Every structure is written in C-alpha cells, then in structure tokens.
C-alpha cells in the first residue's frame, strides 16, 4: 500500500491575505450601484466563491458553486409573491399607523404606536423565518468539499412554525428563553443537513446555552435590578452610571453569546455519528476586531466624508448664488448628485466593513475550528443535486443575511 496515514484532525485555516477581499468587495459594490442593484446577485456570488475557496479544512478547500443568474431568476419569482404581500401589508399597517404613529398624545396612544411597530415587524416574521431556512438550504446545496455536495431537507414550513412559536415565547419571557430559540432552531436545521449521504446531528442541551448567555442576563439584571434599587434607595444620581454599565455589559454579553453560542453548537454537532468538531473562538478576539475595525472605518469614512462635503457644499452654494434663483432643474441635479454620492459612500463603507470586520472574524472563526476523525470522510458518498428552489430570492428580497 502506498496510502499515507491520514492525520486524525483537520484544522481549519483561512488562506486569503489580510483584508484581501477589499478590492473584490469594492468592485462588485460599485458594479451593483451602477446597475441599479441588478449586479448584486453576481456580487454576492463572487464574494461567496472567494470566502469559500479560501476556507480550508486540513489541505482541502471548500467550493461555492452557486451562480448569480440562478439568484436573479429566483429573485424574480420572490418579487412577485412579496410584492403582493408587502404592498397589502404595508398599506394596511400604514392605515393603522395614521391613527397612532403620528403625534401620539396620550400614554395609550404611545402604547398603540409601539404595538403597531411590533405588528409591522411581526407581519414579516413568517417570511423572515422562511427566508432564513431557504437561504441556509441554498447555501448548503451550493457548497462542496472534496467534490461532495452538502444538502438540506425541505422543511422550511416546520421551521417557520417553530420559529414563530419560539419567538413569541422569547418575547413573552423578556428574552429569558432566547437560548431555547437559538438551540431549537439550529437543531432543526442541523438535523436536516447532510454532507453527501451522511447526516449531521445536533447534540448537547438547550440549557447549556445559558453558559454563553449568562452575560446577557447579567447585563439585564444590572439594568433592571441595579436601576430599581438605586432609584428606590434614593441614590438616583447613580442611575446614569448603572445604565451605561448595564448597556455595555449587555452589548459585550450579546457578542459573547453570539460567539460562544456558535462554538457550543458546533462542538456538539456530529456528522454520521463518528465525525465531530472542535470550535474554540475567543469572544475577546471577535469583539476586538469589531471595535478596531469600526474605529478604523470611522476615521477613514470621516476623512472621506469631510472632503466630499467641503467640495460638494461649495459647488451647491456656487450654483444657487450664481443662478440668482435656484431653478427646479438645478435643485434636482444637486439632489441626484447628492443621492449618488451618498450611495457611493455606503458602497465604500460596505466594502470596508467586509474587509476589516467580516473577513477578520471569518479568519478567526475558521482558524479555531477543526474536524476530528478525518479518515471517516472516505466512506461518505455523493448525494444528488438540489435545484435550490428560489436560490435565496426571498432572502434577498427581504434583505436577510447581508452581503454573504
């Protein structure tokens, strides 16, 4: 036998150079802008191909096989369905909004206003859950590793029902049952996910998610308990301090939950009963990346914005003053230029966020993940192709899941 002994563990690594995605993100962003958004399907595809191709487990890389065209076609179908739904829902809610949203005068009206806002969010909830499941299914169906397809069963309906039920439970318990929602929904998807002919399984317990969740709870406790005690004991001057501490704790707790919750769920996944995973991302690293990234972007964006605003402001003043009376066409021209400038600025921001926040976080998450029991992969067989249904058309139309 010439077969070399395979290593037991395949470590993840992200192979792209630092912030290597910036050029691609900016180019595709600009193309999306000048095509009035039509190119965004191809932009998303190219970004995913880049991220997938640079993600390795051991020596082997992932492959993203989705196409921009299928996303565009899926979107066209989703648009028709959603146009009907959204036009009607939005009109009806606007009708209610007219009763309450403008100038609420009494306590009751303010409550009603909140209710309307929540109702408008809730009207979208079923569609969002639907899009979320469909999006994961599409991504898996278009992902290959070692030439073998991933895949997911058609179970978006059950996901929507559970999602809504769990969301209501989470809201009614003021967020106390959020870990239950996270765990159950992830388990529903994982238990229907396949690599080739082999099924994934979600292990662990939902109660264990309270470990990562504890800092969110502490933040809430500080806000509610601390604030209450300070107010009642007459130490009212402490309230602002408590609010700041509570909010910061809540924010950090949210990141901690996001990162460590993911890690817990990944560590407790199995593939075919004998392949397991390691995941040890650091909350501090992710949080540091986010803070440093936004700081850097804020500085760059601030400088760019100041320059553009100075040039543009001078231009507008000159146009208005020289023209004597600003004509409608001049005003329109200024408005159009300002709108394009604003959108271009957003495009630049998007590319920077992708390169200085998203990509470093992906690098960290991938680099701290590993697959255990590599030889067991050899027995996994191919699965048939999945047409991918709407190819994420609903998710795109609902703006779910961002650029990648």
């Amino acid at each position, binding site marked *: 036998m010439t077969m070399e002994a395979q290593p037991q563990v395949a470590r993840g690594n992200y192979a792209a150079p630092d912030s290597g995605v910036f050029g691609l993100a900016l180019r595709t962003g600009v193309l999306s802008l000048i095509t009035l958004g039509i190119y965004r399907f191809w932009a998303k595809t190219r970004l995913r191909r880049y991220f997938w191709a640079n993600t390795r487990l051991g*020596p082997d*890389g992932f492959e993203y*096989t989705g196409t921009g065209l299928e996303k565009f076609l899926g979107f066209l179908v989703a*648009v028709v369905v959603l*146009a009907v739904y959204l036009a009607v829902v939005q009109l009806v809610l606007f009708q209610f909004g007219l009763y309450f949203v403008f100038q609420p005068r009494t306590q009751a009206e303010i409550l009603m206003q909140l209710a309307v806002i929540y109702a408008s969010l809730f009207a979208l909830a079923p569609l969002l859950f639907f899009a979320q499941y469909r999006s994961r299914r599409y991504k898996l169906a278009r992902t290959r590793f070692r030439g*073998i397809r991933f895949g997911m069963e058609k179970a978006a309906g059950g996901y929507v029902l559970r999602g809504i039920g769990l969301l209501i439970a989470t809201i009614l318990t003021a967020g106390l049952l959020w870990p239950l929602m996270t765990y159950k929904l992830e388990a529903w998807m994982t238990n229907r996910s396949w690599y080739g002919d082999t099924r994934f399984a979600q292990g662990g317990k939902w109660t264990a998610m309270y470990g990562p969740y504890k800092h969110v709870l502490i933040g809430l406790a500080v806000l509610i308990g601390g604030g209450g005690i300070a107010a009642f004991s007459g130490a009212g001057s402490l309230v602002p301090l408590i609010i700041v501490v509570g909010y910061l704790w809540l924010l950090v707790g949210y990141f901690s939950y996001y990162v460590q919750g993911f890690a817990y769920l990944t560590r407790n996944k199995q593939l075919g009963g004998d392949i397991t995973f390691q995941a040890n991302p650091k909350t501090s690293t992710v949080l540091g990346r986010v803070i440093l990234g936004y700081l850097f972007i804020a500085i760059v964006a601030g400088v760019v914005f100041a320059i553009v605003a100075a040039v543009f402001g001078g231009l507008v003043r000159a146009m208005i003053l020289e023209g004597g009376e600003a004509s409608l066409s001049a005003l329109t021209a200024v408005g159009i230029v300002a709108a394009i400038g604003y959108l271009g600025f957003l495009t630049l921001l998007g590319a920077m966020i992708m390169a200085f926040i998203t990509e470093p976080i992906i690098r960290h998450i991938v680099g701290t993940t590993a697959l255990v029991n590599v030889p067991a992969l*050899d*027995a996994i067989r191919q699965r048939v192709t999945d047409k991918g249904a709407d190819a994420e058309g609903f998710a795109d139309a609902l703006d779910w899941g961002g650029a990648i």
Partner: protein
Amino acid sequence: MASRPDFPAKGAYFDGETAKSHTVSVTGQGEYLSITPLDPPGKPFFWRLDRIRAQAGARKDTRGPLVLTLRADTDDEQPRDPARLVLQPGPVADWVRASAPALGARDLRPGTWGRVIWRTTAALGAVAAIVFVILPRLSDTLAERLPIEREVAFGQLVVANMEQYLGGADGTLACNDPAGLAALARLEQRLTTGQNLRYDLHLQVFDHPMINAFAAPGGQLVILRGLLDGAGSPAEVAGVLAHEIGHVEARDPTRLAFRAVGSAGILSLLLGDATGGALIAVMGDQVLSASYTREAEAAADAFAYRLLNDTGIGTAGLADFFESLDGKGIDLPEYLSTHPDTAGRAVSARAADGAAHDAVLSDDDWAALQGICG
C-alpha cells in the same frame, strides 16, 4: 505557452462519488492532461484541455492551489463534472493555466437567455399590475375610510416634511408678514365663503423661488413665493388655488400618499434598498410633482371653474395664468407639467364662462400678499 512540464506532479483527485482523497500523478500529454491514480495504482485517464474549467473564486495568481473540473452535461447548477482535481503550485499547474483555453468559461445552457427574458417580463408585468391596478384601488378605498381629523394630522406632517425637503428647518420657510397674512386670510375667505367645503383650509406661503403650489392631505394648501412673484393678478393665484382646493375636496393628495407608500415598499424591494432611502425619495417627489390621474385633473379643473364662477372671481384669471405659462416649459406648477397642453386648458378655462363680477383682492391687499415673505 509555458513549455510542457518534464516530470509529473502529484495532485489530489476527488472522483465526485466519495469524499475520499486520491493521490494521483498528473502531467501534460498533447491536448490532454494525463491523470494516473497512485493509491491504489491504476490506469491513467485523460482530461481534454479545452474541456477543463477552474474553480471560480480561488486566487488568480500562481500561489494558491489550482482546482480543476470538466465541462459535462449534468443536472448541476452549472454543466460540470462532479470530479475535482487539485494541483499545488508548480510547473504542471502553470502549464495548465497557460494551455487550457477555457479555464474561466461560464458555459450557459442553451435556452438560458430565453428563460431570463421570459421571467423578467413576467415579474415586471406582475409588479406593474400591482402598482398600477391593485394599489390604486386599494389606496382609494383606504383613503376614503380615513377619518378627517387623522387626515389633517397626516397632512401637517407632510407639509413639515415638504418644508425640510425644500431646504428649511421646521417652521422657517413659512412667510409671516402680518399684512400679507391678513391678505391671505381674505383671499381664503373670498374663495371659501358659502361653499360648504368638506375641509377647513389651512393656507400658507413658503419662501421659495419655485413657481408652484401644492395640496397636502386634509386641506393643507401651500403656495411657494415664486407663484406670487410670477402671477400677474390675484385672480391668477385664486384660479390656481381653486384647482388645488378641487384636489383637496376629492381627497387626491391622501390617495396619492397611500399609493406612494405602497409603491415605495415595492421599489425598495426591487432595488434591494436597505436604507429606506427610496421611501423618502418617493414621498418627497410624489408630493412635489404630484401626478394625479387625468380624470382627477379634469375633475379638479371642473371644480375650479365652478368655484370661481360661484364666488364671482371668474375663470379669466386662471386662463391668464395658463397662457402666461404656456411655452415657458420650465418650473410649471405640478398640474401643468403633467398636462403640457396648457394652451388648451386656457381656452377651456375661458370658455367656462369668465366674466369677473368682483375684484378678488384690493390693490393694497394684493401688494401685501406679494410682500408676505418680507
């Protein structure tokens, strides 16, 4: 073309049937890539260079691995063979990059363009049906059922937004010269006394050079200073106002606002617009260049003629106004720009009777009104 590699390279081959990684020996051979299994050793097989495709998204430079596959008529999202061959950087990979003529080909299936055109047409048709047929009917129904006090509150909000849209912070565009305001009140009296209007009109002048006037929901009427400057007589202003009152009484602005909200939702859907910018743009644009339907315009004209005759103002002023603007082609009030045939409307306004029985405003009042912005 890079010279043919002298010696084979080792590669990883995935046959597309199992996830097992096969070590293979790879070398170039004429128009083919020759692939020989090593574990266990097997017979070589050949990939034709012109059918070889590279995995998209991997680095284009020579430092990353080269992932190859074959063009094949499969059911997959792209016509590709499920097998993959991974070559590490080296002479063989370089030779493939230089010799395979279609590594980056897209290979669209026949009929793809037909499908794209058909689906695009169907989607646009459906959206057009919603925007132009279903939404107008729905918004008319909803607008009819809106209580007047809500409509008024909404109209105030629209006017405040318009003020910002036109460049003033809240409250800074409204003109407030006392004598001018008194003249404005008398003009309003002149137009509304004994007319049994559904709405209490609220009339104001914004200090803005555009020749325009617009109606917001719930009886809010706004004249832009440019209209007062450009009008030759108070009867012209009264004529324009009579037309706008016609829109208010028919609830056209409310209908339009409902329609704009629905269309904005669809527009932001199509553009993938997450910022909600489309909503603001559409709302502002719709109010300013309100494109009411042809029927609504005709009805507002008819209302104006009736009102102008009943109040003894006469339609001559409105006709003068149409004539003075005919041919200018710029900065027309909304109802003129949507209906360029101003000469025709001037004729019909004159034909709708005409003779003025009483002056609209005294000369002093007219002067005060024109100076309302100080």
